[in-house]
């Protein structure tokens, strides 16, 4: 009697599980993994796209390095990375990459009495702070660029990312370009050997440390600076002008980029010329295989990205990202046509 009941329960449960899973499998699902920075935009697009087409996107924001690992292991349909792969690495692994969305990395400070846009930092000073060469906020070098601003005699606490991150890659890429000492001693990577400072996990970890520690400076994605109402700084750009981190200024930095001549879309948008260019701008990239075993699935993936390029600008901007310019989107779609092939060597797109 008891046994019978038990078996009955098991069977019922199994039937219920099956009833729930089968329709999900029937409906097509795209899987992707990688960068955390564009995750809010991707998930918004995925939601809208699902509403419209019924296709689901399962995007795991495990970080750029993880995304590259996953696509190389072929466990996902696409990978996402904030740091572009070099053309050589793309060739070796048979991948193609294209830029999907852009954004800015913003230095933020927590100094008593200083609000957004009040503190101006030159590239040299920013690098010197992160090298541990400038340790007080009232250092004459900082004061020289900030006449009229009362700077406290407070210790500077440098905050950086503790985890490997595309944000760090963009930030250290900028410091490498503007400081010879940084280039020689520290370098450019997703994680580096920081000369000084505290490490926070993720953008939110850095935001939390900067929020809690007086006299601290950190760097976060623009959206985090806005959402946490953090005091961002003005940076001196390539043209020697002080600029604020705004969507327009990120776009200005992206506008001059010569995507047409960037092999494998390897393009870094830091320290770009232009009067309004925000110097620490970066693009986030998507990685897919050039040679696709499952052409139908590959086409679903490309369809999603094409839809996002076409319809996603508004929602991306609402989330403080910068959409790719139309000219670049055209180029990317041309590249899909040229480079992504099925098993018989036929183009999958369009």
């Amino acid at each position: 009697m008891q046994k019978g009941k038990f078996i009955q329960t098991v069977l019922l449960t199994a039937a219920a599980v099956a009833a729930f899973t089968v329709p999900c499998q029937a409906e097509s699902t795209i899987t992707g993994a990688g960068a955390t920075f564009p995750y809010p935009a991707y998930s918004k697009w995925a939601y809208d796209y699902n509403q419209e087409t019924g296709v689901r996107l399962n995007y795991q924001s495990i970080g750029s390095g993880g995304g590259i690992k996953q696509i190389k292991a072929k466990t996902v349909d696409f990978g996402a990375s904030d740091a572009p792969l070099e053309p050589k690495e793309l060739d070796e692994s048979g991948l193609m990459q294209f830029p999907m969305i852009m954004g800015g990395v913003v230095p933020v400070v927590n100094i008593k009495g200083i609000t957004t846009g009040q503190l101006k930092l030159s590239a040299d000073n920013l690098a010197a702070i992160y090298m541990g060469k400038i340790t007080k906020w009232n250092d004459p070098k900082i004061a020289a660029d900030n006449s009229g601003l009362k700077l406290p005699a407070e210790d500077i606490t440098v905050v950086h990312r503790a985890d490997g991150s595309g944000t760090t890659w963009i930030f250290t890429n900028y410091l490498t370009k503007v400081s010879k000492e940084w280039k020689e001693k520290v370098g450019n990577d997703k994680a580096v050997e920081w000369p000084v400072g505290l490490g926070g996990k993720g953008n939110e970890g850095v935001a939390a440390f900067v929020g809690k520690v007086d006299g601290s400076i950190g760097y976060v994605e623009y959206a985090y600076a806005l959402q946490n109402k953090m005091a961002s700084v003005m940076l001196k750009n390539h043209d020697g002008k002080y600029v604020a981190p705004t969507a327009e200024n990120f776009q200005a930095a992206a506008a001059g980029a010569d995507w047409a001549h960037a092999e494998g879309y390897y393009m870094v948008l830091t320290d770009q010329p232009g009067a309004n260019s925000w110097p620490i701008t970066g693009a986030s990239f998507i990685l897919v295989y050039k040679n696709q075993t499952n052409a139908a699935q590959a086409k679903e993936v490309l369809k999603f990205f094409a839809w996002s390029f076409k319809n996603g600008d508004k929602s991306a901007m609402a989330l403080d990202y910068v959409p790719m310019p139309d000219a670049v989107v055209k180029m990317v779609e041309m590249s899909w046509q040229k480079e992504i092939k099925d098993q018989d060597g036929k183009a999958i797109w369009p």
Partner: protein
Amino acid sequence: MCRSSVCISINWLEEDLRLVSTGRRPHLELMQRMNMNKNKIWGDLVFRGLTAAFASGIALIFIAIILVLWQQSQPSITKFGFSFLTSMSWNPVQEHFGALIPIVGTLLSTFLALVFAIPLSLGIALFLAELAPHWLRAPFGTAIELLAAIPSIVYGMWGLFVLGPLMADYVQPFLKKTLGFLPFFSGPSMGIGMLTAGLVLTLMIIPFISSVTRDVFLMVPQPLKEAAYGLGCTTWEVVRDIMIPYGRKGIAGAIFLGMGRALGETMAVTFVIGNAYHLSWSLFSPGNSIASTLANEFTEADGTIYLSSLIELGLVLFLITLIILSLAQIWLRRSQTGRT
């Protein structure tokens, strides 16, 4: 009918007890003697086999973990050799990795936690076992044991949002003013760093140490204590000269238990230790522990050497914990044989 069955069951019980006392397996033998259904005996055998399989599964998993860690960390072991344990550099750009800073951070934060937690836990245990009014003991004891049930990430968040600012605003300036001549209490008051990590760990291991220690104190024979009181000892003298010496080894076991917990704690430490590869005399400065390094960097570690260095770091933590817990086991076993 009814009477005789009662009689038989009493006979069984007696038989059962006799067999237990001689160390044989009473149920199997009883069933055989009573000529019970063969299937039931088989069931017992299968059950025994199953539990044996589960138990040996644990041993196999243990060996498999060591083997996998060892094998996966080969690239970094061959590249860095012994210098992995002595190098302070952790440089993903140059792909040069050394574990000294995380090792020191793990041991130092654990040491700090023990320094604070041992006297506190002893006090709590004594109060609960000896001094508190009886009606207070159960709720108080439960409250302390409940501390152990709080997820570690909650401790981490509390450390970051509550303890960190308190340390930065009050504790660290005070320590700098009073003990600032010592190198341990210098540098900027960030509220995040080794000392804060040690304090959060303290709070996390107190329930383990204090509840075991309380049980140890409760095992002290009443006649011993009463004899001491009868000789005119004060409560403090009874505690110092009777209870602590009697429970010495049990207390050591409790401390090892807390230590094992502190060594491997990940999330709470990651939140407050500062995650920086610096070695400093100052307890205010940020550092890093093995567990938090792994939590932070594993997902983004690309490149064979980077990944394998992280795995070797895991191996090092595994070995440290293994050594300390084996010592604890030996100690506890000795304390048990010592008492009987």
